[in-house]
């Protein structure tokens, strides 16, 4: 991936159970400092997504790395950025954990 160039990546999610599951996902970027340069144009995250029993779907992410990444001396040794997603099961009335949420 070249900084500044838009890129597409795919994840796959499967619901192995017999019930529909409504999930919501959030993401993480390592190394931490690279996260500020990671720009998502569109993805499947932050909104509830429903997976039917045994359904398997492709989850695309369309993103780019901010070109300023190439100018940042702290990023000089970074040649691998890892994007990961965690899927939470959404429960009625519950929101993604925020500081202080019990």
């Amino acid at each position, binding site marked *: 991936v*070249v900084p500044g160039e838009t890129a597409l990546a795919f994840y796959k999610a499967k619901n192995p159970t017999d019930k529909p599951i409504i999930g919501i996902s959030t993401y993480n970027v390592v190394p931490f400092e690279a996260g500020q340069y990671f720009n998502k144009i569109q993805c*499947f995250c932050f909104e509830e997504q*429903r997976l039917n029993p045994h359904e398997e779907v492709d989850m*695309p992410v369309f993103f780019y790395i901010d070109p300023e990444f190439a100018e940042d001396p702290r990023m000089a040794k970074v040649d691998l950025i890892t994007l990961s997603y965690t899927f939470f099961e959404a429960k009625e009335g519950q929101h993604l954990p925020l500081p202080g949420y019990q």
Partner: protein
Amino acid sequence: MSTAMNFSAKSFKPRPPDKGSFPLDHFGECGAFKERFMQCLRDSGFESGACRERAMAYLQCRMDRQLMANEPLEKLGFKDLVNEASEAKPGKL
């Protein structure tokens, strides 16, 4: 067991995507486009730049099937590829 939330100053703050969320492609309508793109990635040694045309085709598939908000491809970083395509045939608005 420590909580997933880290309250220190360096905690990671997820940001929502610029253009929102992709609806799920429950019926795999764009599965073929995705496969062609993935095949290209495998063939090119996962060189994203080599497969931009197929990425563009995938996004166009989504837009055609209401799985993505319509947006001119030039605005999605494909300006150079769109200009090439319109040189080959009459421009499409």
